[in-house]
């Protein structure tokens, strides 16, 4: 006892030395590891660690050596076990690192862990205008939080996605953010050249100022250091550049910001909206910096107190705040969507890892069975069960660690190179900031995954393999092992098939969706139709001038040679997003939510959508509406829709015509409740028109640009073929189906290997039984049928379970399944058929081999 205390204190003193020096001399982690290892290693004259611990260390060392020797002797086994695990861990870590970079990684500014993002979720209170999302704040609200929060050393606000026209002679569109004056100070950044905003820049009537991003300074101004001395043009206004942000800083969102302007610039850039002093507008995100000694929960409580004060001033309003560590993607609804999507992907990739783990478990089980003799001897000479489990599990741990190491190599080697290429292939991908270099969170994830994988495939075989009835085993070694282990193997096959089905059915659905997107008839003619968009920004288009320009511009574009017809639409067909309205139908007490599009009368002829009955609007007619045929059937079954009355708020409209259904919205359920309402040429600033042209789009685009430039040279004109919208859909389904196909091929291959391995093993072990049966008169085909039937039983069970889970999960995929039902029969019938075929083949192959040798010889040999 005394000795143990003394030895304990001796080790303590050594560890104390290590700690003292590590802290005082700022040694690195590698030094620490080496020193600690040097303490626990080697024979000691003193018992520095307790006997038991020492023995365990020695055992672990022996086990590792033993396992490595076994792997060296059987490199095929090691490679077959390690490769799929490496693939699984590498891919999963890669996917997670992308998610981490947007959802959890701290922002690229000094002391980023102190930053919190603040959003509000509220009910009641006065009517509120929303720009972006309801969870955003108004400027007066921001000021209240800034002045009353005690737990923050600073609070900033910013507004995303301000697309403006830069320049006059050669205009270009750039997207930046509006920020409060303290933005750079609170984030702890200073401009690379120039200065921060001054107080004068930030008051409402102050001089317009902007800070450029380093990237925009380089691309638009060639890195000219004199940019500070002369004004630049934003939306037709002269604006002073006060500074250029540090290289590489593009704001703290996922979308890169090209410039930073004070919030007071809102009234310069968009004078038609009064954002400044209105307390009931949602447009700002808040980011606070916690004081050194303040925990996240304290900051939450403090800010909630301020929120409740605001609630008291606005009767009926209840606010709850969402205060989280700041990350690139913090806006709550977007964050929810991304997390949900990413978890589907992670689960899918995780399933592949599970299938791979099940294969390794299978291999280990088979090996454990083949090693019954060795284990029996070990037990006979005194090994305990715990000792055996430790030894068997060490092997699994080594496979998992080697797999993780291989996975990391895969990740660093390919994934980081792949990511920029992937981003570049997406529309606007180069405007997105994703930093997927691994940080601590990613390392923890990879470590956790490795441990979980090791447990998943190592624990069961270790427990099974270490079950030891010496007597029985010594006698039985080499003979058929039946019973418990057979059941376990059946379960493994079933589980693999179930996992595989869960992946294959969604993959089948996605490839059906891809096929649908390529062969899809939207019900309108998208060929030779161009979408032309302009945004009227700046002082020229204020006070009703915008509407006049709009009218003239449309007239001049339709008069261009090559233009057959032109139409206006509030929503461009197959563009993402939808406009919805709540309407009442005469004679129906219920309110209905319908999709609406405001269009000009020519919309239907430009797109070739036939009017089935009735007529289109006449120009200037405001109280009319058209419905699609399935909308008519839905709301007025058995009655004539024409002449019926639809009310929305105070506006009453007659249905004047019925048009054929067309897939104009990406939302799958839109066609059956769709209204076309007359467009008015109002003071809209963002204008899109659809033009049916005779010639090619390029020629038309040149003509439109030239004509528009004759009216105002500072306008940016975007011209795109309408079929591009279809192409976006096709690209999306292509990526989704491609990833799914790759995953399911991997899963199917792994599952086939699994079935093959188990069957091959079982038939070899059962040669004795087969020999007896055949000696008693069974034929080869009898045997084949018997083995097949026994294998296909767990396969069938696995299929049933897999189909049930896939069907339950398929609804999650609905948003990407364009034109295919989540219960598409072809996917649900085809997948099990293919799986059964693969399983049959994987059974047949080893069975044939096993039955070729003469079973009687096998019998004699025992």
């Amino acid at each position, binding site marked *: 006892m005394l000795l143990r205390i003394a030895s304990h204190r*001796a080790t*303590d*003193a050594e*560890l*104390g030395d290590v700690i*003292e020096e590590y*802290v005082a001399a700022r040694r690195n982690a590698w030094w620490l590891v080496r*020193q600690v290892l*040097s*303490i626990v290693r080697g024979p000691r004259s003193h018992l520095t660690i307790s006997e038991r611990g020492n023995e365990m260390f020695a055992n672990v060392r022996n086990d590792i050596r033993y396992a490595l020797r076994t792997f060296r002797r059987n490199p095929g086994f090691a490679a077959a076990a390690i490769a799929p695990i490496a693939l699984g861990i590498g891919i999963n870590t890669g996917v997670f690192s992308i998610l981490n970079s947007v959802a959890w990684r701290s922002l690229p500014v000094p002391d980023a862990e102190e930053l919190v993002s603040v959003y509000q979720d509220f009910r009641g209170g006065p009517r509120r205008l929303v720009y972006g999302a309801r969870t955003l704040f108004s400027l007066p609200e921001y000021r209240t939080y800034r002045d009353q929060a005690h737990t923050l050393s600073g609070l900033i606000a910013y507004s995303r996605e301000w697309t403006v026209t830069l320049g006059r002679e050669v205009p270009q569109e750039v997207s930046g953010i509006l920020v409060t004056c303290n933005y750079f100070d609170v984030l702890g950044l200073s401009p690379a050249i120039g200065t921060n905003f001054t107080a004068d820049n930030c008051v409402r009537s102050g001089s317009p100022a902007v800070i450029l991003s380093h990237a925009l300074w380089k691309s638009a101004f060639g890195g000219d250091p004199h940019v500070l001395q002369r004004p630049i043009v934003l939306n037709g206004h002269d604006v002073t550049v006060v500074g250029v942000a540090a290289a590489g800083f593009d704001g703290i969102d996922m979308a890169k910001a090209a410039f930073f302007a004070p919030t007071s610039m809102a009234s310069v850039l968009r004078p038609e909206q009064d954002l400044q002093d209105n307390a009931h507008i949602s447009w700002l995100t808040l980011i606070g910096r916690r004081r050194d000694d303040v925990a996240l929960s304290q900051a939450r409580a403090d800010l909630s107190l301020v929120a409740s004060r605001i609630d008291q001033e606005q009767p009926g309003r209840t606010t709850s705040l969402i205060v989280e560590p700041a990350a690139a993607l913090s806006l709550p609804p977007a964050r929810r969507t991304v997390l949900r999507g990413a978890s589907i992907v992670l689960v899918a990739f995780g399933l592949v890892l599970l299938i791979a783990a099940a294969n390794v478990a299978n291999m280990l089980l088979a090996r454990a069975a083949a090693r019954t003799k060795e284990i029996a001897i070990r037990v006979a000479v005194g090994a305990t069960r715990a000792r055996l489990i430790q030894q068997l599990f060490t092997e699994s741990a080594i496979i998992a660690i080697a797999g993780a190491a291989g996975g990391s190599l895969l990740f660093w080697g390919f994934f980081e190179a792949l990511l920029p290429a992937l981003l570049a292939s997406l529309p606007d991908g180069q405007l997105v900031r994703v930093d997927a270099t691994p940080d601590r969170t990613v390392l923890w994830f990879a470590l956790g995954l490795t441990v979980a994988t090791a447990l998943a495939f190592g624990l069961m075989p270790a427990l099974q393999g270490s079950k030891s009835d010496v007597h029985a085993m010594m006698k039985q070694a080499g003979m058929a092992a039946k019973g418990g282990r057979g059941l376990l193997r059946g379960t493994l096959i079933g589980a693999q098939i179930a996992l595989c089905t869960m992946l294959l059915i969604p993959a089948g659905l996605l490839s059906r969706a891809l096929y649908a997107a390529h062969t899809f008839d939207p019900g309108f003619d998208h060929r030779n139709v161009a979408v032309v968009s302009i945004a009227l920004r700046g002082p020229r288009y204020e006070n009703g001038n915008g509407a006049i320009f709009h009218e003239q511009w449309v007239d001049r574009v339709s008069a261009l040679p090559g233009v057959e017809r032109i139409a206006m639409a509030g929503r461009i067909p197959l563009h993402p997003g939808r406009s919805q309205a709540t309407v009442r139908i005469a004679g129906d007490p219920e309110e209905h939510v319908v999709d609406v599009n405001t269009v000009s009368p020519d919309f239907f002829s430009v797109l070739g959508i036939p009017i089935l009955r009735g007529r289109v609007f006449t120009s200037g007619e405001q109280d009319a509406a058209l419905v699609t045929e399935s909308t008519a059937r839905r709301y007025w079954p058995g009655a004539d829709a024409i002449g019926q009355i639809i009310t929305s708020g105070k506006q009453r409209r007659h249905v004047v015509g019925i048009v054929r259904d067309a897939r104009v919205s990406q939302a799958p359920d839109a066609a059956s409740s769709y209204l076309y309402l007359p467009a008015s040429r109002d003071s809209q600033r963002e204008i899109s028109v659809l033009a049916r042209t005779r010639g090619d789009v390029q020629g038309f685009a040149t003509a439109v640009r030239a004509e528009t430039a004759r009216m105002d040279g500072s306008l940016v004109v975007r011209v795109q073929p309408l079929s591009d919208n279809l192409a976006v859909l096709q690209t999306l389904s292509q990526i989704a189906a491609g990833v799914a196909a790759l995953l399911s091929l991997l899963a199917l291959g792994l599952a086939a290997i699994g079935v093959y391995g188990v069957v091959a093993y079982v038939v070899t072990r059962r040669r004795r039984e087969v020999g007896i049966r055949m000696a008693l008169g069974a034929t080869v085909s009898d045997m084949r049928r018997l083995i097949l039937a026994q294998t296909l039983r767990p396969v069938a069970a696995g299929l049933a379970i897999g189909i049930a889970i896939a069907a339950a999960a398929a609804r999650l995929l609905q948003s990407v399944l364009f034109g295919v039902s989540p219960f598409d029969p072809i996917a649900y019938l085809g997948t099990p058929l293919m799986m059964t075929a693969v399983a049959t083949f994987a059974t047949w192959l080893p069975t044939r081999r096993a039955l070729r040798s003469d079973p009687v010889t096998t019998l004699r040999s025992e």
Partner: protein
Amino acid sequence: MAGREHLGEFEQIVLLAILRLGQEAYGVPIRIEIERRTGRAVTVGALYRTLDRLEDKGYISSAFSQPTPERGGRSKRYFTVRPRGLRTLRASRQALSAMWEGLEPLVLGGS
């Protein structure tokens, strides 16, 4: 029989380091002293193996101090050279000097 006992080179170095440090001879300064004077990196584990051996042979003795927070609440183990250690050290030195006698020009003299 102390005089006949053999001291390894590293054992001598460790004993000398303890003598040099006097009252302050515990793990960290001993290691630093050795590293500084010999330019040789020594791991904590290797040092303590030697210290334990020297204590077993009765050349040094050790005592634990009160635990301190900068060491994660662990004690320091201070070492002192016992007379027996001093005697062996002296014997080693004499043996070495005897062997060195007259060889300096040959080994150290260069050219």
